[in-house]
């Protein structure tokens, strides 16, 4: 295995940051949708539906907020991974691949960039939620847990995105991934409702959803309410993250470019 070049990791990260900051409409768009989910759907459900399994006194908005953070991370990370495909289509990947740099460094640069953009967007939506919607503010140890889960969720889905991007030739398959992977992952993550109240088959599906452990961990970190012990959330997500980095790196190495 060839060494990791930190200069390469840095410059790939730097490029993504420049593009992220320049693309203001993307930041606004990526923040507006989760905000609407929280403000409209959250407020609406809170006043009209009784969610089973919620402890007495727990505000539904507080319950929903970690789920929405999970959603932001899922979308931004998958997007960060799949954007490798844009480079492929617009030819820039050739420039990257012909450089004397190990493939691992390239994947790592992408992942670090995905973590950064994910974190910026998660913090942004969380700040809006706390300031404008009166969502519960986490305490200091909670913030550390929060950070750990943000990183793990980002790494996992950037890795998954890179895996897909390495196997795809163009953007045609993106819609399929959106409908058959990203949306089910999100809807079954327990962002909107408690997992314990689900019927057996759906509960089983939710339990194989890695994002469920992510959202549960985020929720424990933010409001101290979780359905699984945080250590289990952490362990499952860590294993998934490692698996996704490995898969992403493996498939990316096999990409042929010319």
């Amino acid at each position, binding site marked *: 295995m060839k060494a990791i070049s930190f200069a390469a990791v840095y410059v790939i990260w730097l490029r993504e940051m420049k593009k992220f900051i320049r693309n203001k409409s993307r930041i606004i768009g990526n923040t507006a949708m989760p905000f609407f989910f929280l403000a409209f759907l959250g407020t609406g459900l809170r006043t009209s539906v009784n969610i089973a399994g919620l402890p007495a006194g727990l505000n539904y908005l507080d319950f929903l907020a970690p789920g929405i953070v999970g959603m932001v991370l899922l979308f931004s990370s998958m997007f960060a991974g799949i954007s490798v495909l844009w*480079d492929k289509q617009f030819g820039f990947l050739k420039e990257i691949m012909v450089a004397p740099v190990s493939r691992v460094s390239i994947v790592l640069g992408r992942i670090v960039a995905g973590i950064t953009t994910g974190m910026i967007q998660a913090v942004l939506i969380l700040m809006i939620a706390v300031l404008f919607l009166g969502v519960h503010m986490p305490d200091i140890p909670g913030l550390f847990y929060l950070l750990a889960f943000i990183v793990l969720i980002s790494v996992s889905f950037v890795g998954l995105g890179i895996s897909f991007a390495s196997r795809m030739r163009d953007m045609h398959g993106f819609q399929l991934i959106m409908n058959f992977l990203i949306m089910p992952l999100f809807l079954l993550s327990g962002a909107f409702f408690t997992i314990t109240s689900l019927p057996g088959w759906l509960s089983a599906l939710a339990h194989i959803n890695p994002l469920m452990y992510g959202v549960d961990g985020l929720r424990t970190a933010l409001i101290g309410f979780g359905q699984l012990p945080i250590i289990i959330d952490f362990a499952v997500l860590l294993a998934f993250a490692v698996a996704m980095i490995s898969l992403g790196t493996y498939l990316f190495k096999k990409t042929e470019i010319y």
Partner: protein
Amino acid sequence: MNVIEIDKLTKDFNGLRAVDGISFSVKEGEIFGLLGPNGAGKTTTINMLATMLMPTSGTAKVCGIDVRQDQDSVRRYIGIVFQDPALDDQLTGEENLDFHARMYGMESKIRKKRIDNVLEIVELKDRAKDIVSKYSGGMRRRLEIARGLMHYPKVLFLDEPTLGLDAQTRRVIWNYILKLNKRENITIILTTHYMEEADYLCNRVAIIDHGKILAIGMPSKLKKLVGEDMISLSTYDNMKLKKVMAKMKWIRNMKLHDNFLDIYTESGEKRIPIIIREAESNGIEVKSVNLRKPTLEDVFLHYTGKTIREHEASSPDRLRQHIRIRHRKTW
């Protein structure tokens, strides 16, 4: 010293032979051209030299290093401008160069100097801070050439450097290529299917078709091999002139047709004054003289039986299509 050494290099794509056992070498400082129609195997050859494709068999060495064995070292020695654009058009020109320099591990001080330096060569200094999406096609090509130079490569590969550019921009790019070959003393390998491009730029060309090299050498020598110069004269008495000229030993052949007398010979430009003198001393007034030298097109025609344009029209190119389909599957 040979910068490139290729021996019986072969590349198969799913049973189709794209490059068929070619061998050649390129000396330091040369501008070497691979000339052939689309799908002849030019880009495949370059991609193997640039470590983007693994050869099926045979060897290829860049600066003495085998492309199979030490890809990272080969990559340091080469710069490449791909056939299709490979810039990030959401970054500025300068940022594209900076990205490249950092990927090649260049230090901050050298990096900044070199960016200025290469931008100066391609005269893009005043546009350095503009986003690339605002650049014209010619400017993008120039930026890519500049980028290929950034890390002081020993060899620069240019894959169809002027494809899709207008005639004027093409000239400009040609002059940059000649300039940097001199100024940076860099070896250049280019592929092209434009005869005049190969003729204007290359010290030596290899004519390649169906994955095989048909001829290799200096353009002038290749042209001499396939034919002589033709001097076409129009005078008031072509018949008489033909008789007068019959005694000249250097004339290979003469033909009378329409209102012209065609004289075939070597170094036609040196013979024209002699012909005119002879004509005038025999009282024959010359109306017009036209010298036609054989072109690389004639060389190509000689070796393949077709001109390069006929080639492209007649064969929609099985191989290229095949490779495209293959891409679709693997990507």
